[in-house]
């Protein structure tokens, strides 16, 4: 066991301390037992939940703090050296610089309010109301001009949720926001007949920006809402006291809109799905039953007497038909046979016999007639021959011969005469033709005219006088004309010398 004097021990501790904490260190804590010495040095204790440490800040250091006056209860960060005061036998923090720890204070207040309200049971799960799945109208307590309400409404639109929104516009920052928010929460929170949910909402910001939602008054008012509440404050990582008292905490305004819309979107989908499913099931069930019914009915029909009767009737009809066919065939056969027999019988009947005999008789008779005729013919031929011989020998025959000769002569005579006549005719014809050309009418045919006056032919210009009527004969008629002048032709070789 080591033995020390008080001084030795204290000095050893001092050396240990000051060896361990050589440089400046920063310590966070809350100021208490604060006092200022007449010399201007600051004496106080820094403490947290469990421990405390003595601090001294000399006047020089204290004077350098311009914008901060320390006081009891402040959360601070003190920077300085850890020293051991040998005379007093204690250790202390020699503070050189000290900053107001706003974050620390924030959390201190936060924790205080949280602890208090939690103790009162305001966070109890049993207190939480259920936010309806299908809100019809929602109160939104937020700034009407903030980004939060914009996000909320856009999301609502995009998600396809349908509900009415009342915007209770309030400032959402600073001490001045507390009263309006509390008022809005009190009013809207009581309107259970109007609202299905109340959303307290603010976009993201610094811890200080969000501080209003850690205010005890605000949290209490929010907690007191009879309408189910939703808190949507800041970003995902931000937590406020209001989040703890809300019936439902969502991370952001967007998340609040999504949550409130989900019910509607799901409800529409569910209702339609259920209806469709039900109709399918019902139809299936009906089809199954119809099919079963059809099958059973078919079975019943097959087993029914009527069906058997019908079948038998069909069979009967078939048999009847084939029977009839058989009978017809038999009858036909019999008929044929009968006709044959009848033919035979008929051929054996007395009438047939008589007929046959008559035919035979007719045959004999015709033979007899033929033969008789032949005999007669033969006699006749002989008679003719004899007659011919007789006639050859008759005087008539001779006479005929002579007659023939006479005729022959006659013929010769006629022929020769005719021949002569033809010859004369042949000689005559050219003469006649010549004569014909000399016919004055033929001249007319060639276009010559015959002129006559006073019924006499005019052969010379001297045969006429002026105003005599002339008749000029042409091939196809006459022209009557008067003599209007005459001129005697000078040529002497003309047939008709023309003289004037």
């Amino acid at each position, binding site marked *: 066991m080591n033995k020390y004097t008080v001084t030795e021990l204290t000095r050893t501790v001092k050396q240990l301390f000051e060896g361990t904490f050589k440089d400046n260190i920063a310590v966070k804590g809350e100021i208490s037992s604060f006092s200022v010495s007449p010399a201007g040095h600051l004496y106080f204790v820094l403490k947290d939940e469990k421990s405390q440490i003595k601090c001294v800040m000399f006047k020089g250091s204290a004077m350098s703090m311009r914008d901060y006056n320390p006081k009891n209860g402040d959360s601070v960060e003190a920077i300085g050296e850890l020293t051991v005061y040998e005379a007093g036998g204690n250790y202390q923090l020699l503070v050189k610089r000290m900053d107001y720890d706003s974050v620390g204070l924030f959390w201190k207040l936060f924790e205080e309010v949280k602890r208090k309200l939690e103790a009162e049971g305001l966070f109890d799960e049993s207190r939480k109301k259920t936010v*309806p*799945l*299908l*809100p*019809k109208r929602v*109160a939104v307590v937020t700034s*009407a*001009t903030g980004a939060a*309400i*914009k996000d909320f*409404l*856009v999301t*609502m639109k995009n998600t396809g*949720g*349908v*509900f*009415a*929104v*009342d*915007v*209770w*516009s309030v400032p959402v920052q600073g001490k001045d926001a507390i009263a309006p928010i509390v008022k809005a929460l009190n*009013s*809207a929170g009581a*309107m259970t*007949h*109007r609202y*299905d949910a109340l959303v307290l909402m603010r976009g993201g910001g610094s811890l200080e920006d969000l501080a209003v939602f850690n205010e005890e008054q605000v949290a209490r008012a929010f907690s007191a809402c009879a309408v189910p509440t939703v808190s949507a404050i800041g970003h995902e990582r931000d937590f406020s006291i209001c989040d703890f008292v809300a019936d439902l905490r969502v991370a952001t305004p967007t998340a609040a809109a999504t949550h409130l819309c989900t019910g*509607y979107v799901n*409800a*529409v989908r*569910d*209702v*339609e799905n*259920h*209806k469709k*499913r*039900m*109709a399918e*099931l*019902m139809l299936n*069930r009906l089809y199954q*039953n119809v099919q079963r019914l059809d099958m059973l009915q078919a079975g019943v029909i097959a087993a029914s007497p009527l069906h058997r009767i019908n079948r038998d009737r069909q069979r009967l009809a078939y048999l009847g038909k084939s029977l009839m066919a058989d009978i017809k065939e038999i009858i036909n056969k019999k008929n044929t046979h009968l006709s044959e027999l009848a033919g035979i019988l008929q051929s054996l009947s007395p009438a047939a016999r008589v007929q046959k005999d008559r035919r035979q008789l007719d045959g004999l008779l015709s033979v007899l007639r033929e033969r008789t005729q032949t005999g007669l013919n033969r006699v006749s031929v002989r008679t003719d021959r004899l007659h011919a011989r007789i006639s050859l020998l008759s005087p008539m025959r001779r006479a005929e011969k002579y007659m023939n000769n006479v005729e022959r002569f006659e013929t010769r005579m006629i022929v020769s005469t005719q021949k002569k006549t033809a010859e004369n005719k042949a000689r005559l014809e050219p003469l006649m033709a010549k004569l014909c050309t000399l016919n004055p009418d033929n001249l007319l045919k060639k276009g010559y005219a015959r002129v006559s006056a006073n019924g006499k032919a005019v052969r010379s210009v001297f045969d006429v006088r002026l105003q005599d009527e002339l008749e000029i004969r042409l091939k196809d008629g006459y022209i009557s004309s008067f003599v209007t002048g005459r001129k005697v032709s000078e040529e002497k070789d003309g047939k008709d010398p023309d003289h004037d």
Partner: protein
Amino acid sequence: MSSEKFEDKLKKLEVIVERLESGEVDIEENLKLFQEGMKLGKECRKMLDDIESKVSRVLSADGDEVKTEQFDEPL
């Protein structure tokens, strides 16, 4: 709240669909359930269709009276 009623109706509708799906009900019951289900479905749909999407700004509130105006969405 009528939304509670909606949820009740939807729940009933679900139960009916489940029963129909089980196929254990006889045909008369089946038809009855189907008709009831269709009626519920129609009512549910009507309730959904009756909800109006409207955004208003609260001007003042006096007791239960709330005065609102058309909210000009800052979109």
